[in-house]
């Protein structure tokens, strides 16, 4: 069945994904005059960046003294020293520039009395190397992601960017040398499959939070970029590190921003105690997210949860001035009324830690280039945002650093593409003869499968397995069992069946193809987590407890290194953490406390 042909379209660059990082990269490329295609499963402003709430970090110092070096320190500490210090320095130094740029693009930031960008406190944001909370999160009420995504889309309208809306990328095209030559994509409206042949391919496909049953993430967050990369032989880095956001609405999973605590919100248990004072005496409710989530689960596990089943805690803002809530947290009030059935002006919000963000991803350097195991760039391939692992978030991301990551690395990846295209480092290489065979075989298998597995049930089983075996606290035996279960689920995924065979807007087909990506991410996560025999950041296991030799269970001798999961044979390899920043001194390993 070789040499099946599909239409081919040629571009200088193809960007897959039109959330924050994809749109930021697209601005660079369009304004530089490169022939660029941006593919997105959804209309750009429906991408999940739109749901970010609290802010984007930058040491603007608009309300009090701040410095990028302090921001860098907080990020390294937040990452539990697993973040690469060159990338972290790059991001924190660039933050003021990219945030101001966004303001120039039209972003409707809230303002201080002097007319500057409004900044609020956030978890883990401290002044003077961890001393006391600082206002660093630049905010547009509690709709920062929405305001940002629309401003970035609008700038792209101005730049005449060419969008392919409601196209799903299916597979990466690589030649024998390993160079990336574009993607094969499916137009959802017509069912047509087309090759986007390009000099440069930028992945900005976002995260895969939908591998968990309870998630703040949108339905579309199915790790498509990760699945495509894994199938094309590119390893996934640090996939055991998943952030559970402390405050998802109990039952619904919808996000309640950390900005609520930034504005003075307090977490309380069933005895009305402000329990974070016990876990983080200094930062309290504004400790890092992994720390707060573990404290909440501990409270619930020890019987101090609220409600009839004692299975959530309360986020209390009833002591705040209603005018402040209406002005700074209007979206949160709407969400609480809609999804918790309570008005937070009058009653506390029931919350529970909920899967939120993937710290790992496709390995990149700080220029947004995807790198091989030895650190050399893979020609023609770039990635930015949640799909990428630069690694700036290490084992735990600080709140508001995700929106910053989008801007900084979206722009950096765009600049790298421009440089590589203009210098002739990458050109339009010929497509291999059989480039479409693998993808067409996948589609054909799905179209002809009979007696196969139900997509919805298989996905639910995957999500429940991840939730049960790979949650906030992890247990050795559960992880081992989890790996075996995921391997079983993988077999079902290989023989999914859909009843809908229509060529027109076939959402059943799209969901089956998304499941092909979810399983890669789930497997990478479970296998990497089972293997990492220490506790670090968001990865905490029962057999790596807090001891004098290994405070917080962190084992720097054995495990201060990045995981690389390879799809072939589900094999693991490791690479060192980059401890040398670009211009300042190394922030040396230290026990983490808040």
């Amino acid at each position, binding site marked *: 069945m070789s040499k099946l042909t599909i239409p081919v379209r040629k571009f200088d660059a193809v960007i897959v994904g039109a959330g924050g990082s994809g749109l930021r990269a697209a601005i660079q490329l369009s304004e530089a005059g490169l022939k660029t295609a941006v593919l997105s499963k959804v209309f750009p402003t429906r991408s999940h960046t739109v749901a970010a709430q609290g802010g984007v970090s930058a040491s603007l110092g608009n309300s009090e003294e701040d410095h990028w070096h302090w921001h860098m320190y907080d990020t390294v500490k937040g990452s539990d020293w697993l973040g690469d210090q060159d990338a972290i320095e790059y991001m924190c130094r660039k933050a003021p520039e990219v945030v101001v740029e966004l303001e120039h693009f039209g972003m409707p930031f809230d303002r201080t009395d002097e007319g500057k960008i409004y900044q609020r406190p956030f978890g883990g944001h401290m002044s003077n190397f961890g001393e006391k909370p600082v206002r660093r999160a630049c905010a547009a009420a509690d709709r920062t992601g929405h305001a940002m995504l629309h401003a970035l889309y609008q700038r792209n309208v101005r730049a005449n960017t060419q969008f392919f809306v409601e196209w799903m990328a299916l597979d990466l095209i690589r030649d024998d040398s390993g160079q990336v030559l574009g993607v094969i994509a499916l137009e959802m409206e017509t069912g047509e499959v087309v090759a986007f042949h390009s000099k440069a391919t930028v992945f900005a496909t976002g995260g895969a939070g939908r591998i968990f049953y309870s998630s703040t993430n949108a339905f579309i967050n199915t790790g498509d970029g990760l699945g495509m990369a894994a199938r094309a032989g590119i390893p996934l880095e640090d996939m055991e590190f998943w952030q559970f956001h402390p405050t998802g609405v109990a039952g619904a999973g919808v996000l309640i921003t950390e900005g609520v605590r930034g504005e003075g919100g307090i977490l309380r248990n069933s005895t009305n105690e402000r329990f974070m004072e016990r876990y983080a005496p200094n930062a309290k409710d504004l400790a890092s997210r992994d720390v707060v989530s573990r404290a909440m689960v501990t409270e619930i596990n020890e019987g101090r949860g609220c409600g009839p089943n004692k299975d959530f805690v309360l986020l209390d803002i009833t002591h705040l001035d209603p005018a402040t809530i209406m002005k700074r947290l209007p979206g949160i009030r709407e969400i609480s009324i809609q999804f918790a059935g309570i008005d937070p002006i009058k009653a506390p919000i029931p919350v529970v830690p909920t899967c939120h963000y993937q710290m790992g991803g496709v390995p990149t350097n700080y220029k947004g280039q995807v790198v091989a195991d030895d650190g050399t760039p893979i020609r023609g391939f770039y990635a930015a945002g949640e799909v990428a692992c630069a690694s700036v978030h290490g084992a735990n991301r600080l709140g508001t650093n995700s929106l910053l990551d989008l801007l900084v690395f979206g722009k950096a990846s765009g600049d790298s593409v421009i440089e590589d295209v203009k210098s002739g480092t990458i050109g339009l290489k010929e497509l291999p003869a059989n480039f479409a065979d693998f993808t067409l075989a996948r589609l054909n298998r799905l179209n002809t499968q009979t007696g196969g597995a139900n997509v919805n049930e298989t996905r639910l089983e995957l999500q429940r397995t991840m939730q049960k075996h790979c949650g906030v606290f992890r247990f050795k035996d559960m992880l081992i069992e989890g790996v075996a279960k995921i391997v079983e689920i993988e077999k079902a995924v290989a023989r999914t069946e859909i009843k809908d065979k*229509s060529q027109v807007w076939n959402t059943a087909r799209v969901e089956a193809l998304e499941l092909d990506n979810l399983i890669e991410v789930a497997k990478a996560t479970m296998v990497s987590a089972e293997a990492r025999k220490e506790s670090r950041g968001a990865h905490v296991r029962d057999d790596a407890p807090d001891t004098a030799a290994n405070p917080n269970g962190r084992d720097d001798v054995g495990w201060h290194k990045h995981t690389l999961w390879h799809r072939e044979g589900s094999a693991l390899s490791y690479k060192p953490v980059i401890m040398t920043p670009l211009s300042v001194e190394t922030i040396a390993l230290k026990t983490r406390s808040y």
Partner: protein
Amino acid sequence: MTTSTMQFKIYRYDPDKDNAPYMQDISVEVDFAIDRKLLDILTRLKAKDDSLAYRRSCREGICGSDAMNINGKNGLACLTEIKDLKQPVVLRPLPGLPVIRDLIVDMTQFFKQYHSIKPYLINEGPRPDRERLQSPEEREELNGLYECILCACCSTSCPSFWWNPDKFVGPAGLLNAYRFIADTRDEATNERLDDLEDPYRLFRCHSIMNCVDVCPKGLNPTRAIGKIKEMMVRRAI
């Protein structure tokens, strides 16, 4: 008992196999302990019949994907409480736009109108090193405007948009036009007003206010349109 059966009538059309659209009667077991929103029910229905096609993403009313016509009124499935719905619940695609399949409409015309108002900040002056200053009061002017999620509930409930989707900008586009007119950082107010001073682009709005009635974010396009008209009058005298 938290479970009960709900009756639905859903617009179905797959051009690949159907000669014409039809309304499908479906009953579904609902568990009110878990299912709160219409989107929860659609998810249940899709688990049984994977051919039911609709758009959805964030499920929290911020992405604007799952707009549809629910018992005769446009709204977002993810924000619609099921217990308030009269049965049988009639679900149709957004009115006034071509149907692609089932509850999915072709939104090309809607976005064309949005793009036509130059939905981006125009300020060609030299870029300062820092942010452009804007007072809290000036920023306040953007509230009730910038929150638009482009779901199209408003424009597709507007009779004027139904008759002239190619000529009338529609409530969503006009709300966004005023979002930039009202922005103190934008320098193209006159050009923007010139562009709208047209019997169709702006003046097809007859203040029917369906847009205000259906906006899932509680925004008021009619007021924004009124402000644009006011500014036109003011600059004429």
